[in-house]
C-alpha cells in the first residue's frame, strides 16, 4: 500500500518536472535566433508608375551589387538609399531632393535630434 502511494506521488511529481521543463524550453526556444535573414530587394516589381520603376531598378541594382559589398557606414535606420527609395515612392520626384537632404545629414554631428533604433547605435529617421 505504502509502495503504491509512493509510486503515485512520484508519478505526479515527475509529471510536474516535465511540464515545468517544457515551459522553460518554450521560454528559451528562440534566444539564439539572433542571426539575420536574407533581405530581398525586388522593389521595382510593385511599382505604380515609370519613375518608381526606374528608381526601383537602380535601387535594386545598387543594393544587390554595390551596397552588398560595402561596409556599413550609414548612421541611419532605414539607410539613406532605402530612405530615398521610400521617399520617391511616397512623394514622387521630390523624394530625390529628400534623399539628397538625408545624405547631407548622414553623419554623427547632431545625435540629439534622433532617437536610437532598437538595440543598435543607428539613428532612427523614417520617411514620415
Amino acid at each position, binding site marked *: 500500500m505504502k509502495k503504491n502511494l509512493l509510486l503515485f506521488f512520484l508519478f505526479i511529481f515527475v509529471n510536474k518536472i516535465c511540464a*515545468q*521543463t517544457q515551459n522553460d*524550453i518554450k521560454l528559451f526556444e528562440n534566444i539564439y535566433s*539572433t*542571426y*539575420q535573414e536574407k533581405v530581398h530587394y525586388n522593389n521595382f516589381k510593385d511599382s505604380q508608375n515609370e519613375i518608381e520603376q526606374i528608381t526601383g531598378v537602380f535601387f535594386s541594382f545598387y543594393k*544587390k551589387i554595390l551596397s552588398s*559589398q560595402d561596409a556599413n557606414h550609414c548612421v541611419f535606420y532605414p539607410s539613406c538609399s532605402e530612405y530615398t527609395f521610400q521617399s520617391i515612392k511616397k512623394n514622387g520626384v521630390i523624394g530625390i531632393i529628400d534623399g539628397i537632404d538625408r545624405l547631407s545629414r548622414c553623419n554623427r554631428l547632431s545625435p540629439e535630434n534622433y532617437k536610437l533604433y532598437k538595440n543598435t547605435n543607428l539613428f532612427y529617421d523614417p520617411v514620415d
Partner: protein
Amino acid sequence: MMKYILKRLSLLLIVFKFILFYNVSAQSIDETIKFADNQYGELNYKLAIKEYQRALFFSNGDKIEYLYKQIANSNFNIHNYDKAAYYYELSYKTSYNDSLKNELLLKKASCYILNENYDLALLELINFSDSLDIYFENRKNFYYAVIYFGLEDFEVSKSYFLKIFNDKQLLEKQQIELIFDKKKNFNNPNPKFAKLISFIVPGSGQLYSGNFKNGLNSLILTSGIAVLGIYIAQYYSVFDAILSTAPWFFRYYVGGAQNSKKIALNKRAKRRDKTYKKILNIIKTSNN
C-alpha cells in the same frame, strides 16, 4: 435674502454630496488589487502595472510580496526584462517561502538570459542552496546549460544538459554527446579566417561561408576596378589611376573582407541556433 440662503444651501448640498460620493467611490486596496488582477487576466499588463503600483504605494505592507511579484510578472510579459528582474529581486527579498524564493530566482535568471546578460544570470543561479529537490535541481541544470551555451562554453553546457536526463535515458544522453562532439556545429565557419582569406583573395571568405553569390560579386567588383586602374595607368598615368580608382578599390576590397566576417558570424549563429534547437527537441521528446 432668500436668494442668499438658497445659494448657501445649494453650496452645502454640493459639499455634502461630494463627501458622500467620495466615501462611496473611494477604492480600498483590495479592490485596487482585484481590478489590477482583472487587467492582468485580460492581458492588459500596462494598466495592471499602474494599478499594482498604486496598491503598493497605499498598502500597509500586507501583500507587498504578491504585489512585487505581479508587477514583475506584468513587466516580464511585456518583455520589459530589466524592470521585471528588479521587482523579482524585491519580491525575493520580501518572501519567506523557500520554494517561492527558488521560483523567483529562476524567474530573475530568465530575465537576464532573455536580455542576453548571461554573466548576471549565472550570478543569480549561484544564490541557490546546495540542497535542492529534484524539481528545482532539474530546472537549475537546464538554466546552467542554456547560460553556458550562450557564453560559448560548450563543454560545460554539455555537462549540464546531460545532468537533465536520468540514468535510464541513455539514448538521449548519447544523442546529446554526439551533437556536442561535432565541433563543426559550433565553430564553423570561422569569422577571422573568412576575413583573412578575403584579404588575400577578395570574395573567398564569402565562398568559404557558403554565400557564393556574394563571393562572386565581390571578386568581380574588386577585380573589375583593379583592371580599370591598370588600364588607366597604361593609357594615362599611374597618378590618374590612383586618383580615380584607388578609393573605389579600397572601399570594396575592405568592405568585402568585413562583409565576409559578418556573413561567417551570421552563418555560425544560424548553425548554433539549429544545434540548440536540436538539443531542446531531444529534451522535449524525452519528457513526452
